[in-house]
């Protein structure tokens, strides 16, 4: 891990230099948003990632997994004539460096990768981008109070999913180069080496940021809880009562990846697209027969939380499918808070574990009695 130190006035020129080698994406004010909130997108020549931003409403997942992606092109067949299927152009994209990504959002990329890189099938679009991407993170020193990323095993300074970590000080960006990919990027951008002072400052900032965070929810009892018990609890209809199944939570979430597949045709030319989808709508799971295993709204709500907090951890053994970014809490129109849901689920699981524990101890006591 090598310290770096970039004076703020040197950052723009460094990015211009990096763009000679890399395509660069980063946070910039959204031209189409009246409030000029920031979003992540690929930058044009002359643009610089705005590292003074605080938060983005949408996560940066679109850089790897665009909201609409062409999977292949085709000609519409007519009159019994052959019409070929043609590859999409996206394979020609240049390696992308995302600069200014929050460390916990980068961790979310690793969770998405578990889905798109399975034993039997590889998603070529996601994986090619993911393998080429350089992740230059920006520590979160302007944490919202909905953020509970440390409780999710990552945090505002987490380096585990980054190639470079930067943090903002008064007059400079200080940080550390973590991987070989990061080293190449730092060289291409001409980042200056830092000192032991910078390393110390970074550690101090990390500690300060984390100590300011509110305690996160406790989900310690979920891992060992029985899946069918959690699914069968009687609290789901109550927890889901105000949810209008709008899907804002899934769209803004960095770890949600569901997609739909649709064809779009103009004249004789067509594309098959994949589009972000949300498990919150009824058509999502409706069978062709009209039967729907998740017809009632609360069942869709339950599926989202069970997937994040139980099915995913059970399947991959790598913790929950949530990095605690807080976006679903900020964006929910009816104020549903995943921390509350986690709390309720965990309380039920802990209660069940305690009851089972008592039963077991009771059993042992009897066994001891019988033996004596």
């Amino acid at each position, binding site marked *: 891990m090598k310290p770096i130190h970039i004076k703020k006035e040197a950052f723009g020129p460094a990015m211009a230099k990096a763009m000679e080698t890399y395509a660069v994406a980063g946070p910039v004010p959204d031209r189409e948003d009246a409030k000029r909130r920031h979003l992540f997108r690929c930058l044009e020549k002359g643009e610089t990632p705005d590292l003074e931003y605080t938060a983005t409403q949408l996560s940066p997942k679109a850089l790897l997994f665009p909201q609409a992606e062409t*999977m292949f092109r085709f000609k519409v067949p007519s009159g019994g004539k052959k019409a070929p299927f043609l*590859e999409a152009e996206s394979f020609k994209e240049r390696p992308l460096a995302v600069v200014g990504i929050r460390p916990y959002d980068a961790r979310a990329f690793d969770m998405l990768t578990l889905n798109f890189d*399975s034993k039997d*099938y590889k998603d070529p679009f996601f994986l090619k981008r993911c393998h080429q991407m350089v992740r230059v993170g920006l520590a979160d020193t302007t944490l919202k109070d909905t953020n509970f990323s440390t409780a999710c095993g990552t945090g505002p300074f987490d380096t585990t999913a980054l190639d470079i970590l930067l943090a903002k000080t008064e007059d400079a960006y200080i940080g550390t180069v973590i991987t070989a990919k990061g080293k190449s990027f730092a060289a291409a951008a001409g980042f200056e080496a830092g000192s032991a002072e910078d390393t110390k400052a970074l550690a101090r900032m990390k500690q300060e940021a984390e100590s300011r965070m509110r305690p996160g929810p406790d989900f310690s009892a979920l891992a060992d809880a029985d899946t069918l018990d959690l699914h069968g609890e009687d609290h789901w209809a109550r927890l889901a009562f105000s949810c209008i199944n709008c899907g804002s939570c899934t769209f803004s979430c960095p770890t949600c990846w569901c997609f739909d*597949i649709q064809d779009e045709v103009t004249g004789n030319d067509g594309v098959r697209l994949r589009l972000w989808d949300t498990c919150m709508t009824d058509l999502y799971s409706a069978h062709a027969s009209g039967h729907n295993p998740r017809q009632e709204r609360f069942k869709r709500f339950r599926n989202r939380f069970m997937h994040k907090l139980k099915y995913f951890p059970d399947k991959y053994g790598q913790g929950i499918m949530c990095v605690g970014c807080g976006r679903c809490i900020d964006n929910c129109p009816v104020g549903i808070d995943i921390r509350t849901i986690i709390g309720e689920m965990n309380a039920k699981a802990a209660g069940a574990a305690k009851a089972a524990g008592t039963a077991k101890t009771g059993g042992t006591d009897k066994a001891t009695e019988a033996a004596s």
Partner: protein
Amino acid sequence: MTNPYHPYPVTIRDIRTETEDKSLKTFTFVFDSPEDESAFDFTCGQFAMLSVQGVGEIPIGIASSPTEKPEVKFTVFNTGKVTSHLHRMKAGDAMGIRGPLGNGFPMDRLAGKNILIIGGGFAFTTLRSFIESARQPENRHRFKNIDVVYGARTPGMLLYRDELAAWEKSGDINVHITVDATDDQDWPYHTGFVPAVTERCAPASDGNTLAIVCGPPIMIKFTRPVLRDLGYRDEDILMSLENRMKCGIGMCGRCNIGRELVCHDGPVFTLAELNGTPGEF
């Protein structure tokens, strides 16, 4: 990296209307390239995406047996956007097939066993694939007795009618055909619902029999207690599910039942496996 969303180009060789109400047609396809044809290496019980450029793609069970290659067959019920478009297509038309997908029937587990096949309505398609394959002289010795209970609403709604008659005549499998009702005085087969006919005709399990059950939820619901009374354990009952699907390769998330993805971990599960899921199918 290959693109798993890319279909193989195919041509429709033949279209056959199966039922009196014309709602079911069987499509026979041939692959445009021999490499694609050999890459499409499937087992009974798998499905594929039928892909019409500009309209969309849908999961359909493979109705033909691997022994019928190079042709592949699918029987499609006319219900929505893609299926109604398919029903308007003609022999010679070009389209695409993506697959094979899913796990298929566990052929290793089925080997050496008595097999009881129970089908209702148009969920009979992949069962035809299995029966057609198992009947072949090179395969028949791999299985002990094969019993087939198959029912439809009326005689005119039975799929593959010529074949059913031929199977019965050949005597290498026991066929129990039934319809809910008919006014045909000379109807030579059973009348009554599938669960009732199963109760009357199906062999009890000797612990060495596997049941494969495919049909509408209501048929499955009433067949379960019958099978239990006949001594079938939940581990020995196989079912094929039809959850809504998009990608078919375990990526899009759509077909989940708890942590299982029906397109990839299924569509064939034992009843015992399904008992361990949240049951959202």
